[in-house]
């Protein structure tokens, strides 16, 4: 149920972002881009919750073999079709993947920088053109 709500939220955010990007006002386009990037961040975070399936976390032994304390296997045994680090039998733990959170942090920082740049650009365009209507931005043609 929780996952359904989360997915629905992400979908609606993608919808709003796409709608805003198709507007004529530059500022709305920029807001649309931010909404979209937040939707992507939510999407990434939502992939990081596991209920006892694949857990990509390195254990103390350096990442190979079974450790009894955590109950995880980190060997990719391709012949047995074991693709990612998986739980040893008899264990069932809910994990949150720490890596996706690192990814999201990086993505947030990057989108902060790009949004700051594009906002300043929008301000300068407003100064030069006297409007924020995107249809007026068509001096380059041919």
């Amino acid at each position, binding site marked *: 149920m929780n996952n359904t709500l989360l997915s629905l939220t992400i979908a609606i955010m993608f919808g709003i972002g796409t709608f805003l*990007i198709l507007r004529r006002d*530059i500022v709305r*386009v920029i807001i649309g*881009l931010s909404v*979209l*990037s937040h939707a*992507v961040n939510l*999407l*990434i975070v939502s*992939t990081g919750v596991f209920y006892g399936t*694949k857990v*990509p976390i*390195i254990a103390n032994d*350096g*990442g*190979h073999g079974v450790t009894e304390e955590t109950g995880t296997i980190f060997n*990719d045994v*391709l012949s047995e*079709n074991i*693709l*990612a*680090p998986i739980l040893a039998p008899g264990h069932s733990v809910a994990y949150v993947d720490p*890596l*996706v959170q690192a*990814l999201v942090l*990086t*993505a947030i920082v*990057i989108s902060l*920088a*790009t949004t700051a*740049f*594009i906002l300043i*650009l*929008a301000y*300068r*365009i407003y100064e*030069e*053109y006297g409007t924020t209507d995107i249809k007026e*931005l068509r*001096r*380059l043609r*041919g």
Partner: protein
Amino acid sequence: MNSLAQHLPIILIATPILMASLMVLLRSRPQFQKVLNISVYFVLAFLSIVLLLQVWNDGIQVYEVGEWGKYGILLVADLLSAGMVVLTTCISLLSMVYSLDYIEKRSLSSTYYPLFNLMLAGLNGSFLTGDIFNLFVFFEILLLSSCGLVIANEHGGVTKISDKMEATFKYLVLNMLGSIVMLIAVASLYATTGTLNMADISVKLSAMSAAGTMPWHVFAIALMFIVVFGNKAAIFPLHYWLPDVHPTAPSPISAMLSGVLIKVGAYGMLRVFFLIFRDTLYIFQPVIIYLALATIIVGAISAVAQNDVKRLLAYSSVSQIGYVFLGMGLGSIYAITASLVYLVNHAIAKSMLFLSSGAIIHYAGTRDMRKMGGMVDRFPMIALFFLAGAMSIAGLPPTGGFIAKFVLFDAGITDKYYFEIGIALIFAVFSLFYMFRAWLLMFWGEIRDTEKYGDYSAQKASPLILVPIMVLAVAIMVLGLYAEPLIALATATAGQILDPQPYIEAVLTRVVR
């Protein structure tokens, strides 16, 4: 020396980043900045050649950043990466030398040097990284720094600042959308395979495919990567930003954008599709081929009608990148060799053409070719160099472009793609037409109507502007007359691309510390 050689991949990325911050600190000492930057770029070009030789002699080099093994960030230098890094560092050295006299002094020392260094770091990083999320990060570094560079001011102010901002806005919005799509694709890939290491993903996806359990959404992810790299490389439905951005940027930046930056898309395509999505390629090869053909057609037809010299060159870039993607889509080892040879030749020729068009518009005070004419008397050297570049783009012997087109068409005919090669040949004739139209309009004929448009400015191009153009023109001729080493290198590279097993082994069969 031995330890330095081990750390080459990280040096090639870290030095430009370090230089960027150093250049901000040194902005009140322009002379020192100039000397330091040029000497560091010389060293970087040398080091990249050392790296290529190292890869050629000792096989694929893997560098673990922070020694986390395959779970951390890896820098992998195989022949493709090292070759692209050599191309990048050499062209950016020449563009930097050219910029010293071309870019306005104040803008040069305050923003231009740091951003140029960051762009070089982004380029080297995206070529060398072995981690797909890291590729995204370097793409963003590349995007932001190149946006800042497009707005940089050149001497004379031929391009209005409002035009630059409009172009940058288009570039930034489209590429931000591209990076959002890339983030979705990377996240889905991670959720599917549980790893971000490209070699690891490749192993897992091919194991799934061998077991017949490949999820259907892998195809959707692959399609998203076509959108991302197609957007970077300006492939047909996504090429509309390029003819605005490349002409409005200052000429050395146009040379970097057209010469190297759109090749990042081609590199990403080669890396991601032939390493990770090998098993989906049978569906996407026709897609790539027909997108490439559409790109060739649209670029060539649009270039014919242009009067702005840099806009013509930009549309020509769209058309030429189509040929690179065509070779990729054909997919045999010979076709990929052709695609790589084409990529290198186009990078050199198009950088040269943009640099010399910068010297020309600097002199004429306008970008409109109809207002030029008769410049062969005043500018015999540039006329000669521009002719060499035009011949290379048009594919005439004895330039490198002839070899590239010949190998590409030969590869297509060997693989019996007669219809595709036929279309490519027809539009190669178009490129002959538009390049020579540009050359004739600018250099031949009467001197322009000086009463109507004013005389040419008395300012001649300085040696710092002429030398990079000359070096690149010589490189075009050398690649045409003595093409065997490049073709041998490209063949070895294509072999590595089509058989990724050595790459995977080099990355994965290492002791995790």
